[in-house]
């Protein structure tokens, strides 16, 4: 099983490549479109997959992955499980600001099937930021996309003098039960 590594290829230079991982039906394509249409400093190329590891056939054509987004749908337990499985195939260096969780369907607490606490525990354990959002209206999609794009720009090196590790050191941790 090959892990997804952040530094095993030469960077593209003009594009930022984002990989979106999530089970089917979670909204990867909507988010991908919003990311492409969002206001980023650089053109963004998106690759979508349902699980890691990625199929080896495309390995040679695939550019270096700058940023990984894991999509979780709160109304589907299965999306959380597949993301957890994929996390094991991710190289540890992606946790240093080069990946995030995009969590959707937050607005309706009655249809929720995933316990948010367990999601937060995973996010703390791996050190990956969790971003909550919705993909229902255009505005919400753009909001979520823009927040992800801010992190993508830093991770692909398009912001001078800022590295993802620098951001990680000043990241505010999520509010946990103790507070």
């Amino acid at each position, binding site marked *: 099983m090959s892990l997804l590594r952040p530094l095993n290829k030469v960077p593209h230079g003009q594009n930022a490549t984002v990989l979106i991982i999530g089970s*089917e039906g979670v909204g990867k394509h909507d988010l991908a479109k919003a990311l492409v249409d969002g206001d980023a400093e650089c*053109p963004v*190329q998106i*690759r*979508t997959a349902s699980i890691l590891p990625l*199929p080896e056939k495309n390995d040679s054509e695939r550019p270096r992955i700058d940023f990984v987004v894991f999509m979780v749908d709160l109304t589907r337990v299965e999306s959380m499980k597949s993301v957890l499985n994929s996390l094991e195939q991710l190289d540890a260096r992606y946790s240093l600001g080069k990946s995030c969780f995009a969590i959707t369907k937050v607005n309706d607490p009655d249809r929720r099937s995933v316990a948010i606490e367990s999601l937060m525990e995973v996010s703390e354990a791996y050190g990956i930021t969790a971003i909550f959002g919705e993909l229902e209206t255009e505005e919400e999609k753009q909001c979520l996309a823009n927040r992800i794009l801010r992190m993508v720009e830093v991770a692909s090196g398009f912001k001078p003098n800022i590295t993802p590790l620098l951001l990680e050191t000043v990241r505010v941790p999520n509010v946990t039960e103790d507070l």
Partner: protein
Amino acid sequence: METLIVQNVLRRCRVSDIPKLLNEWNCSEVQIDKSQTKGEIIRDIIELYSDDLTATKAGDLQLIYATKFPEKRKWSCFHLSGGQDSEHKLDPWKLMKDLKKQLPLHFGRLKSETYVSGRIVDGALWMWAYVKQSDKFQSSSTIMFVYYPRTPYIFINHFRAKLQEPFMECLVYTFGYSKLTNMQLTGTHLESLLQLALNKDSQGSFSRFRLKKVQAAPLSTKMPLKRKEPDYEPNPSIICENSRNKRRKLEILDNTFGTEAQPVLEEVEYKLEVRFRGSEHVPAMVNRAQPFRCKFKFEGPAVLDGIKNLGKSGLATVPLPSILTSVSSKARNHFVLQDSSLADKSATRLSQQ
């Protein structure tokens, strides 16, 4: 009681459909005053016809309503078997006459009056019978069935259990067969039920030869399959890593279900009496000898399409198991799965019950 039947029928249909219905019933033009409420219209109609309203005539109205709106009723399919070819099976008019004579005789054992009415619609025989067991009108004593000549299948609606035995006997005797078995096939869409019953061997991917009237031989492998264009425009910046997988999945689904529309079924039910299989996380249940009894039912407007879509949307892993894909070729929608004998605990087979 006759007025109750008429009221029942008219209340169920829409105001715009009432003139059509009455037209066919009484062969006379009826004017409906659109400004009145439905209740008032119904009262006027009953007043108009109450002079010569017999139970048979009221039943006729119910039968016409059933022929025009068969999807409002749940039909079960029965199979006639073990008979010899005889002339009258081909002639629906003769059958209707015979049934009108035989049904009251068979129900006469229950000491109740029977009213029978029948119609031939598009070559199919539709019959209505009401067994009067009390002064009040009981809709569960109404029997309606449809017979398509030259087929061994009858579609019967649901009625009370007490009347089932004499009715079955009557059918078997009149049609000239020796046995009437329940096929465990139910639904509201008569057309689909008939398709499933008649075309057991040309469902799934073979249905394209029947529905599209494709000329090429079914076993020839040179036939190219046209793939449908994807719904969205491919964006050059968005690349799907699993597109090969997705295409393969769609191919498998198209091969099992065919690209045409599936017959419409409202529910598919499975009863399982099999070994418990969730025991990875419950070690104590691994050695459990007794079967784990459970039942699951899929419901919706078009369940067979739904099963295909479950596979397409990733909610079910493809290739789908045979119990889901073989629904259309088995001509039934209630299945019972049982573990085979104690000797081989891990195998399961589909049992016909």
